[in-house]
């Protein structure tokens, strides 16, 4: 018997294209249409005045509040104090040291993030192992002819970035080890991991920071007591690694049992099967969770203001108390929010790109 192939026809009119899209998504029913109109109205009355205040009527240049006379936002407050917001109380003549550290770091990250750059492995190793040493000597000094800049002079955005980057990078390996420990067959290793994770997840970060800065010195003698920034960092890392461990555990549990069995059957031992088979697949699944944790940590760093470290938020708040500039808190907080948003949005975008790129063989065994 013979049969003819049916021709493929275009879809009915009005079901695709702009009109189809509008109909389907914005005006699919009376309630939906009403909601669309209400939202459009709200946007019309709010966005216009906001833009007028923030951009059109705003003042940008000047060096005192007298420059702000147009009635809009007074960004002069920000531009006038931008150095302090970026560098904290770091001596002005030494700003180049922070700049250099930042540029080296930014170059490394760009190299790693951009697709198809060669020698990624070497650059990653440099960023992880060599850069911290360079960064330390540049920022803190005390060698190579650089003066020591005590950490209590650090502040602003540079301090926020230091806390976030070190916290993120150091919490990752601890988190992986804790997650493996929690899934270990060895009872002691497992219970220690569980106790650690549940303890740190059960206390608020503020408490951890308080403990690190206020209570620790009470217990530890004067000579042993160390730098406040370092104490805060250790607190953040311990806190964060517990969260990271749970994200990693979620990823490990999502790997089908067959993968463990196949690795076992081939005679790969525990570490090899973890390193080659399980973790590479699990990390791929964990990207959204990891980035989520990173973003949360990045914003949580602003909590260090309660132990007297001047991160970006703290230093802007301090500047708001300057009698010269009273009344510009809106501008200050918008600036802080915008800076945080740019970094967090960047991380989120990168993670989405990474997820897409790594999709070699999901949904298959």
């Amino acid at each position, binding site marked *: 018997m013979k049969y003819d192939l049916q021709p493929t026809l275009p879809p009915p009119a009005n079901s695709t294209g702009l009109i189809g899209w509008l109909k389907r998504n914005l005006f699919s029913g009376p309630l939906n249409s009403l909601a669309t109109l209400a939202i459009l109205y709200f946007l019309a009355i709010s966005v216009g005045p906001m833009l007028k205040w923030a951009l059109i009527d705003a003042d940008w240049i000047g060096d005192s509040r007298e420059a702000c006379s147009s009635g809009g936002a007074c960004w002069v407050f920000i531009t006038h104090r931008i150095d302090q917001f970026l560098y904290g109380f770091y001596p002005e003549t030494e700003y180049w040291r922070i700049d250099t550290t930042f540029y080296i770091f930014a170059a490394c990250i760009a190299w790693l993030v951009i697709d198809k750059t060669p020698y990624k492995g070497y650059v990653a190793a440099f960023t992880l192992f060599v850069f911290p040493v360079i960064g330390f000597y540049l920022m803190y000094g005390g060698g190579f002819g650089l003066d020591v800049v005590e950490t209590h002079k650090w502040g602003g955005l540079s301090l926020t970035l230091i806390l976030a980057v070190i916290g993120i990078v150091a919490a990752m390996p601890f988190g992986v080890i804790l997650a493996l420990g929690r899934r270990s067959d060895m009872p002691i290793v497992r219970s220690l991991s569980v106790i650690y994770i549940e303890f740190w997840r059960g206390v608020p970060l503020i408490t951890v920071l308080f403990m690190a800065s206020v209570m620790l010195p009470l217990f530890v003698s004067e000579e042993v007591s160390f730098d406040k920034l370092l104490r805060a960092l250790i607190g953040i890392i311990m806190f964060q690694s517990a969260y990271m461990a749970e994200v990693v555990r979620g990823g490990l549990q999502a790997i089908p049992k067959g993968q463990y069995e*196949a690795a076992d059957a081939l*005679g*790969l*031992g525990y570490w090899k099967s973890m390193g080659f088979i399980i973790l590479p697949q699990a990390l791929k699944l964990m990207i959204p969770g990891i980035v989520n944790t990173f973003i949360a940590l990045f914003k949580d760093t602003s909590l260090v203001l309660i132990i007297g470290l001047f991160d970006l938020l703290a230093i802007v708040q301090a500047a708001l108390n300057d009698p010269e500039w009273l009344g510009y808190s809106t501008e200050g907080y918008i600036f802080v929010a915008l800076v945080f948003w740019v970094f967090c949005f960047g991380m989120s975008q990168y993670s989405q790109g990474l997820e897409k790129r790594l999709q*070699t063989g999901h949904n*298959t065994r």
Partner: protein
Amino acid sequence: MSTLEKSNQAQFMIELRDMNKWYGEFHVLKNINLQVQRGERIVICGPSGSGKSTMIRCINRLEEHQKGDIIVNGTELTNDLKNIELIRRDVGMVFQHFNLFPHLTVLENCCLAPIWVKKKPRAEAEATAMEYLERVKIPDQALKYPGQLSGGQQQRVAIARSLCMNPDVMLFDEPTSALDPEMIKEVLDVMIELADEGGMTMLCVTHEMGFAKTVADRVIFMDAGQIIEENEPHEFFNNPQHERTQLFLSQILQH
């Protein structure tokens, strides 16, 4: 339990002596006794839940037995990790769901264990892998990822991956049960070829009775955690002794 030396390895490739296993309270395997000669090809069949998969999974310690002895190639399987590793090097396994590593290419799947467990140089491992991929008739897929292959192709890769370790024993755990009907043949063909070459000890849990008839030296029938009957295939299929075996065969051979 005595620790056996490698010296008496000539006797049997695999020996199970009064082997018992429990899942919690549930007694899965009861007093299993089995001796497998070097190069022998055994098909294990039986209704689902009879413990046949569990039994062969005990042989490379994917499952732990609680009582009795398992001796593979002269090495006794105990909690000693060294012995387990030793046995796993000699015993390859093919799973129902292939269990290929989805993040690695076909070639990398085949080379990983030879490079990192047997410490072979990469070039040599790759050459061996290509040789085996040719034998399972998919050398042209070497650089693809498992997700890009059909089920039958994936299972053939899984067979090649196990063969790359040069095992003395191959365990097949229902290798065709998860495949679409038109792909079963290509996998069975590869397994028949492997059996015809000789030398390889094969234990295969399967419902493919045609395969059992052509390839097996011995067919084992299991039910409720016990070996009910074993015989060479002609006798097994034409003259089953045990009532339970007769019932099972009448049920699966009807269609």
